[in-house]
């Protein structure tokens, strides 16, 4: 918003104290709250003399990579080991006479990075509040040839950071005997300065209710999982 003085004192007249204070407040209000693109000089923002988003990642206005790798190479990228397939917990019978009916918030599992089952984590440290796009992707599959084909196989996937969900999840489902279910979740939001440990959570919501006991012998796996991010401070 442009600042335009509206009540400046006039030469030869006695200044109105109230008008002067209103003018100061108006000026202060624009400077504090209303700076936008209209206040920027033409051609002011240099795009050639700028810090490299990778080499000078701590002062760059973008978060794209780092010279101190946190994931793979100089990218903000964490991936599961090649060839590793993580076995997930499948539906389980809860008690005699009833099958488990899972409710929201239960049985989330973290994606593991490798056979040691350490969590797959992408850790990023921000110097300033930054709008990040975080991406989680991977491949889910369910095996078990005795699965009753009329049952729906269903997984929820979400991104998780510093103790809480990033608020977005995807559900993938299929009625195929042994389905392969790719997933892609992404989120764009402001992250506060500091370190963020980003992980992927998965839960198998396949219901055993409309299925035979054979469903419980099926095996769910997660593979090729990856977390990547990029973002912009400004």
């Amino acid at each position: 918003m442009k600042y335009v003085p509206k009540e400046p004192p006039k030469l030869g007249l006695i200044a109105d104290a109230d008008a002067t204070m209103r003018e100061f407040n108006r000026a202060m209000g624009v400077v504090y709250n209303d700076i936008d693109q209209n206040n920027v000089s033409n051609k002011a923002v240099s795009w050639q003399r700028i810090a490299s988003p990778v080499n000078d990642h701590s002062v760059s206005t973008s978060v794209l990579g780092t010279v101190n790798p946190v994931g793979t190479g100089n990218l903000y990228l964490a991936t599961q080991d090649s060839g590793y397939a993580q076995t997930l917990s499948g539906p389980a019978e809860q008690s005699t006479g009833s099958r488990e009916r899972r409710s929201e918030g239960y049985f989330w599992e973290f994606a593991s990075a490798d056979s040691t089952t350490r969590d797959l984590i992408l850790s990023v440290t921000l110097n300033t509040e930054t709008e990040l796009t975080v991406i989680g992707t991977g491949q889910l599959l369910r095996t078990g040839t005795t699965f009753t084909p009329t049952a729906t196989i269903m997984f929820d996937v979400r991104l998780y950071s510093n103790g809480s969900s990033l608020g977005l999840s995807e559900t993938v489902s299929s009625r195929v005997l042994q389905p392969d279910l790719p997933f892609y979740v992404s989120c764009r939001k402001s992250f506060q300065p500091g370190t963020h440990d980003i992980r992927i959570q998965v839960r198998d919501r396949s219901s055993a209710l409309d299925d035979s006991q054979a469903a419980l012998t099926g095996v769910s796996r997660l593979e090729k999982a990856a977390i990547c991010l990029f973002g912009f401070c400004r």
Partner: protein
Amino acid sequence: MAGLKHLISPESSLSATEVAENFSAIGDRCNDLPDGAFEGAALTTRHLDRQSVGTTAAMGWSAGINRFKDTRSTSFEVVTIPASSYGDITNAVTPSQPLANFYGGEIALPVFAWAEISFYDFDAFSSTPWNVQTRDVTYYFKLQYKTDLMSAWEDIPNIDTERRAQAGSATSGGGPPNYTAPPEEATMVLFGVVSPGSASSISFKLVGYRTNVAGSTPKVVGSIRSLYVVR
């Protein structure tokens, strides 16, 4: 940011004109901010218009805000998917993305790529749903990339972009028009990221195949895009 034109000192006085000039000085600075006046995170690139970013064309990039982020994308119509082994999906190639390098000799900036596709058995959809038996075809897709320094397309390193899925159920009992599963259209998003080194351009493409199941005509439709961020 520069201060007032006339300092306000203890026990001094300013004329009305000087006070007015101070207000004008605030206006001049406030309305003509230089790049260095912004703290990180105070202003995002979305706040900057074409004029504030500059208009000199370079590197084949369009002017204005595209200087910071450049996208190349293309969409492709319903395309037949190769059978049994990986092959090209017709027209699923991003236009060449120029890689402006303002940081000579430094580490390359990454380029991100996405493909958003849907795929299905064309035969099952060409008839009234439930009248045609759906078939359990498995579809495979992955992203590949090629820079001006490479002679052939290669899989994206560090991240396995291959994904597979089915679009339709093996369930087919009941007979027409009462098959127990309708035809399905499955969707998939593939994601990859590459640090292209000292290359000066890059393209991505989608490749795929599907299992052979008699009586099916698997097809795919979608779009593919790349994103390069300079600042």
